[in-house]
């Protein structure tokens, strides 16, 4: 399988030839940032299009059709439109916090986005606490949402923000515990390390029962952390008009919108990374021919394919289920998901120490 490390190393050496080390690092940082921003916006736009099409398909509709072929340019039109919408600032609000909030949400999702390993050697920094870093920075988002709700100085946004605060902080726990279960199995927190550990079998197969359980808990918790249906209470359209971003217009609203879809990609990516082997191809022991063919598919395609597949499952859930109520949502987390997750973690620890997992 092609290692993108070769390309990046070549660029690094090329730059080092006529630049001092500090300048090289700076140039590389800028290059990475530009690449990241481009990838970020493209992925977000693709996701908006993807969701519209999937939702149309589920609802017996066509989705965008007329702007560009199959509606491919629809999202570009939306972006142009939203860029030139008026930005409304309100009276009697804390203007600084009001304007800061969308950027916080955006920064949180971008930081998390930067940690994902896209393919073999295609990662920005491989930290030894990579997973921990992902969990940490993804929590900044809730701050942005709370600020947005508070700074808008409106009752709807405040209720929306409070709901989302309660929701995201609660479900962060379950999310963290299910991630911890996998870290336990992998024996490393490094993102690359986790992926490499799945070379002989994806964790969802390797860790059998506890891994599957952790996967289910992760899907529920990630859905909730993402504020997507059936946990879309913070922006529950039918109760709170638009929840915490009711008062935002133009590109500020656009940031929330983009971050929402990018978060969807991130949680799908993390699910793919932790449970479905990241960019590792599907290998079935004994089927050498099949495995060889699988190896030909580039790692980026594997990663994106898995992430998009997970996203499809998230969308399927969203468009099928009704919304839960706030007390039911909290009960689900604190009474069921978290205790089950904790027990599951203990079970996993025992399995790992005893070596009862496949490929041990």
């Amino acid at each position, binding site marked *: 399988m092609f290692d993108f490390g070769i390309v990046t190393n070549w660029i690094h050496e090329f730059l080092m030839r006529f630049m001092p080390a500090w300048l090289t690092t700076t140039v590389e940082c800028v290059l990475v940032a530009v690449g990241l921003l481009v990838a970020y916006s493209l992925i977000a736009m693709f996701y908006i299009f993807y969701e519209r099409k999937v*939702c149309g398909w*589920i*609802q*017996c*509709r066509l989705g965008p059709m007329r702007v560009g072929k199959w509606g491919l340019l629809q999202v570009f039109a939306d972006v142009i439109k939203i860029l030139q919408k008026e930005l409304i600032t309100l009276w009697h609000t804390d203007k600084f916090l009001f304007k800061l909030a969308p950027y916080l949400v955006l920064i949180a999702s971008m930081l998390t986005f930067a940690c994902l390993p896209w393919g073999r050697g295609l990662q920005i920094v491989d930290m030894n606490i990579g997973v921990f870093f992902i969990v940490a920075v993804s929590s900044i988002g809730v701050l942005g949402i709370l600020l947005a709700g508070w700074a808008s100085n409106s*009752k*709807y946004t405040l*209720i929306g923000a409070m*709901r989302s605060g309660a929701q995201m902080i609660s479900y962060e726990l379950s999310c963290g515990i299910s991630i911890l279960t996998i870290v336990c199995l992998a024996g490393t927190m490094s993102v690359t390390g986790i992926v490499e550990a799945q070379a002989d079998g994806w964790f969802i197969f390797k860790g059998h029962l506890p891994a599957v359980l952790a996967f289910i808990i992760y899907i529920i918790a990630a859905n909730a952390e993402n504020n997507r*249906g*059936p946990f*879309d*209470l913070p922006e*529950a*359209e*039918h*109760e709170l*008009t638009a929840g915490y971003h009711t008062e935002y217009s133009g590109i500020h609203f656009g940031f929330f919108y983009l971050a929402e879809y990018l978060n969807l990609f991130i949680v799908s990516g993390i699910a793919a990374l932790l449970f479905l082997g990241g960019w590792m191809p599907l290998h079935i022991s004994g089927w050498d021919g099949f495995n060889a063919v699988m190896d030909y598919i580039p790692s980026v395609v594997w990663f994106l394919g898995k992430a998009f597949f997970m996203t499809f499952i998230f969308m399927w859930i969203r*468009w*099928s*289920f*009704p*919304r*839960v*109520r*706030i*007390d*039911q949502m909290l009960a689900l987390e604190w009474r069921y998901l978290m205790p089950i997750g904790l027990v599951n973690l203990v079970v996993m620890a025992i399995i790992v120490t005893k070596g009862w997992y496949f490929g041990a």
Partner: protein
Amino acid sequence: MAEIQDKITQLCPQAQIDTTGEFLLVTVADAQWHDLAKALKTQLHFDYLTAVVGMEWPDARGCVYYLTNTDTQEVIHVKVTAPDREQPMLHSVVDLWPVANFQEREVYDFFGIIFIGHPDMRRMFLRNDWVGYPLRKDYDPATNPLRLEDETGEDYTCRWVEDENGKVKKVDGKVFEDDEYVVNVGPQHPSTHGVMRYRASLDGEVVKKIDVVSGYIHRGIEKMCEDLTYPQMLLYTERMDYMAAHINRHCMCLCIEKALGLEVPRRAELIRLMMDELMRLSSHLLSYGCLTMDQGATTAFFYGFRDRELIYDIFDRTCGARMSMSYSTIGGVVADVHEDFIKDVRHACDVIEKNLKEYHKLFTGNVIAVNRMTGVGILNKQDAIDYAITGPSGRASGVHCDVRKTHPYSLYNEFDFDEVIYQNGDSMDRYMVRMKEMEQCIKILRQACDKLEAEGIQGEYIAPKVPKVMKLPAGHWYQQVEASRGAFGVYIESDGNTKPVRVHFQSPCFNLIGVVDLTCRDNLIADLITITASLDFVIPDIDR
């Protein structure tokens, strides 16, 4: 009937009793009214206040009360006149029939009749700063130009109380206290199903009290009807509850035909009945869609709408319009049905019957939906009767209130169908009643298809002798039908001219908003949306 008559004479010797009309008419003065009302409710079991019609006669102002006995389904009406014409006051009956709360506020709004003992004497539909009372004959529209400033004094309310000496005095009050956290829902809000507005006092996410503010689509239909001839009036019936357009229009036609003594051909009546049931089907599909959408299951909404298109197609082919069909007319229907009508109806029945199973699979059994609806917003049987809740919402509480069964009209007694009754009165039951009623609609439609085929696919559709100029004999007429959301009634008072003196529409949704506060109190704000969606009201029907 004679028994009731004797009893009333015993109870209140001053009452005048008139047996010539369709129902027994009792006329009393305000002084005796409250005692008589109490006796009627407790002794004669007239526990169901069907309608309160504010009236202005040349010599007096007052009200006509329609009362029903829920055991025997007997109806009487009582005419009460206020002693003073210029400053009319009546005794309130809110303490006996809670439904009178909003009904009396409406009368106050339109006629300026003050109800003594009413707990909340505010305007119902018009702005707080409205001048005068629009349904009085001497009202001048120029006194109320369009105002674009916001309304003030929304928290102000007042009561009129009578002391032992019979002196009436005004007591000011407040709707919400100053320290309450009041959230405004509506009038522009995605799940108020139009322009309803609630002001909800919250404690955290728990609703403490709801004040329903109505009138954001009040169009004064009753007043406009007074300037129109009878055939012209039919237009407005379709624009109140647009999801029961055929049924409302049918009701008006029946009422006028009853007054004129006009015989409608059986085939025309059959077509009207089929249209009514199609309308009901379409309306319940919409309410399924809206209920699911309000709970966040967007896909279910699209499924409901997909199947409604089939019904729209039938309307489109026969009536020439998808909504506001203007199809029934006095004496029959305006045109014969399309030649494929029966085929289309059968097809729609088959498709919808099949898809109903899919709806149940998608939504009814879903654990989230079950948890959100079961036991939420319970309306018990007694409250349902007290608040005069009819239609699917009433039947979910176990009240036998289907007008098609209690006072059969049109050809309904020829059809074999069940009245769907559930007992718990929670949101789930209200939802299930509608789902089951759709099956009954399909059953009726299939029978009707057979009957219509027997009558001939094309044939007589309007009475041969419909008078060109319609003059209703002097007097008053009342007709009730079962609309999609409950009993819809039309009251017409005529003085023998081509135009009516007073038209009143008794709309089912108007009573439904009366229980919003009762059912939502102490529930979460998310439940407010579920409950109101399961009550399923159409706002223009409330406001008229």
